[in-house]
């Protein structure tokens, strides 16, 4: 296509249809909202990252020397947790990629409730502003888990505003979840039956079940915390008839499924990337689809495994332990199916695939250690040690963040119409992988040896492993800063991408890059299932590309 023709085709894409600030701030276009979310969560990611950097610097030496007090360290890990969990991980894939891609993938013109979508972004920003306010004025020191009675009775920090920021942002999640669920039910294109949906949609649907059913309980737990803190009623004070464990039950009822909010979309992304770069249809499509739902449902049954040593009854602990074993099964099914998809595939190790493969390996390690932790007998020893920290970072960072990065790279050409530099992409993926292992694997050992979490000082015997961890973190940091730079640069100087640079299947690749404001010039009619890849077709496509 000539340059002039390309220019004309690109004239009316969703980015260039209107340029005013108002057209962005009052947009109801799910694609623009997805981009706005991307900017916001990237900002919070780097704030959370800054907190982590300071923590790792402090932990290079056994004594507390960089920070001026243990309180400062407490505030750092709390803000790291709150920002990373509520303002980065939970919205990341669903609000950025989910918002952008879901209507495209199902052949719709927008989500079911576009104005609620915009409202969800504004609510997120308001919550974020309150969180920033708390951060600037010293943060809080309760841990992101806000455990009572410390948070309700003893902490001298701004607990109520911090709880308020999370409360507010929760409504953003709820709206996104409602939108995704209803959209998937009512707005699929003709011929797009449930079992022809891409697994990305299944994964986001399952995630949205958790958004809708879990988040309100978090909201209530924080509201009760605020009431207790302001009115000193004794809800969580045993001396006045209350129970601090009640807070934990209500908090973890959401926060455990929340970790599946963070990982299910990651799995959804991986399910899109792996078939494309192995040039094979996904193995066990229905199993992966149903497993996504199973994970969402089962995730609500297991929250007590965070409370084995909190004072929960032994029998309660046993019930939760057994149920926690169950929830690992559908995750395992997915890992097996992705691996089977790779078997005899024509594997291309492009950047998205590197991230996806990294996800599979690291999530597996994280998940297996999760099984170890579900075992009460082990958990009572490693609870509140670095073993736990390593476990969840393997899943959150090794899993969810890598999947997010993979997804951003995979769909970058679709969202922006530009390609990123492949060598830089591969380099960053490699740096992240190496940096990640160096940062977090030593933490398993540290935890097993007994180093407690949330401590800014430690026994000198742990120093070597801590230094390794900090060294890894610095590599990891480079791995995250690089994409920020080259992805932004690609907007100006990256090669222009066609509608389907990866030769992927899926409706989103059948429209231009970037898509027009209303997504499709004609409503697509679906006649085949997803992932109609074959190595032979790939050969043909590659040969065709060279012409």
């Amino acid at each position: 296509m000539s340059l002039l023709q390309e220019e004309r085709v690109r004239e009316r894409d969703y980015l260039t249809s209107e340029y005013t600030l108002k057209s962005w701030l009052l947009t109801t276009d799910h694609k623009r909202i997805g981009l706005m979310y991307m900017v916001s969560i990237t900002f919070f990611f780097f704030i959370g990252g800054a907190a982590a950097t300071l923590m790792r610097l402090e932990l290079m030496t056994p004594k507390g020397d960089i920070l001026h007090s243990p309180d400062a360290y407490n505030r750092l890990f709390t803000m790291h947790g709150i920002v990373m969990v509520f303002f980065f991980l939970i919205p990341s894939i669903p609000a950025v990629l989910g918002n952008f891609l879901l209507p495209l993938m199902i052949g719709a013109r927008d989500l079911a409730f576009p104005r609620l979508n915009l409202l969800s972004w504004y609510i997120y920003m308001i919550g974020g502003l309150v969180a920033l306010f708390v951060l600037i004025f010293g943060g809080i020191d309760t841990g992101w888990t806000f455990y009572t009675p410390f948070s309700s009775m003893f902490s001298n920090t701004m607990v109520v505003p911090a709880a308020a920021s999370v409360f507010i942002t929760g409504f953003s999640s709820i709206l996104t979840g409602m939108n995704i669920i209803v959209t998937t039910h009512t707005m699929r294109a003709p011929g797009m039956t449930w079992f022809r949906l891409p697994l990305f949609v299944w994964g986001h649907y399952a995630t949205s079940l958790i958004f809708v059913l879990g988040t309100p309980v978090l909201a209530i737990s924080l509201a009760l915390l605020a009431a207790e803190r302001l009115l000193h009623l004794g809800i969580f004070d045993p001396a006045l008839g209350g129970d601090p464990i009640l807070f934990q039950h209500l908090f973890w009822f959401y926060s455990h499924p929340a970790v599946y909010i963070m990982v299910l979309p990651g799995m959804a992304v991986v399910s899109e990337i792996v078939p494309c770069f192995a040039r094979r249809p996904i193995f066990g499509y229905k199993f992966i689809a149903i497993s996504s739902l199973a994970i969402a449902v089962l995730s609500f049954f297991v929250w007590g495994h965070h409370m084995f040593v909190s004072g929960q009854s032994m029998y309660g602990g046993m019930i939760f332990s057994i149920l926690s074993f169950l929830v690992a099964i559908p995750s395992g099914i997915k890992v097996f199916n992705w691996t089977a998809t790779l078997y005899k595939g024509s594997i291309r190790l492009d950047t998205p695939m590197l991230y996806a493969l990294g996800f599979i390996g690291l999530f597996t390690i994280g998940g297996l250690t999760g099984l170890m932790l579900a075992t009460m007998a082990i958990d009572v020893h490693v609870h509140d040690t670095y073993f736990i920290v390593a476990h969840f970072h393997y899943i959150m960072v090794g899993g969810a963040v890598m999947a997010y990065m993979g997804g951003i790279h995979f769909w970058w050409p679709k969202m922006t119409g530009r390609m990123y530099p492949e060598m830089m992409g591969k380099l960053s993926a490699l740096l992240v992988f190496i940096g990640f292992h160096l940062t977090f694997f030593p933490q398993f050992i540290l935890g097993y040896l007994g180093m407690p979490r949330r401590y800014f000082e430690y026994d000198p015997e742990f120093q070597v492993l801590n230094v390794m961890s900090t060294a890894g973190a610095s590599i990891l940091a480079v791995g995250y800063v690089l994409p920020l730079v080259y992805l932004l640069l690609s907007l100006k100087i990256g090669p222009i991408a066609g509608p389907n640079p990866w030769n992927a299947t899926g409706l989103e690749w059948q429209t231009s890059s970037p898509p027009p404001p209303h997504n499709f010039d004609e409503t697509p009619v679906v006649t085949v299932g997803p992932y109609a890849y074959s190595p032979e077709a790939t050969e043909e496509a590659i040969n065709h590309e060279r012409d």
Partner: protein
Amino acid sequence: MRQHIVSVRTNVTIFLILQLLLVATVALAYVPLGKMHLTTSLTIAVAKAVLIVLYFMHIRWSRKLNWVFASASLVWFALLLALTMSDYLTRDWLPIPGK
């Protein structure tokens, strides 16, 4: 267009049943039922809720999917309640303090 329009008779009948159930619930509260008070009052409350959901909220004539959404939310609440209380109701079953 919605397929089904509720008759005035249906609406009023349901309303009257609801008011009767209300009278019943208050009356029974004053009858010495011992341990059965909670069960009785909750059963009547559930009956009222079911009537409101089925008729006033149209579930009886709605898509199956709406029924699924309504039921799922109740099941989830029951899950929260049941598993939380499973901790409290099984405390002190073992001779270990705090377990």
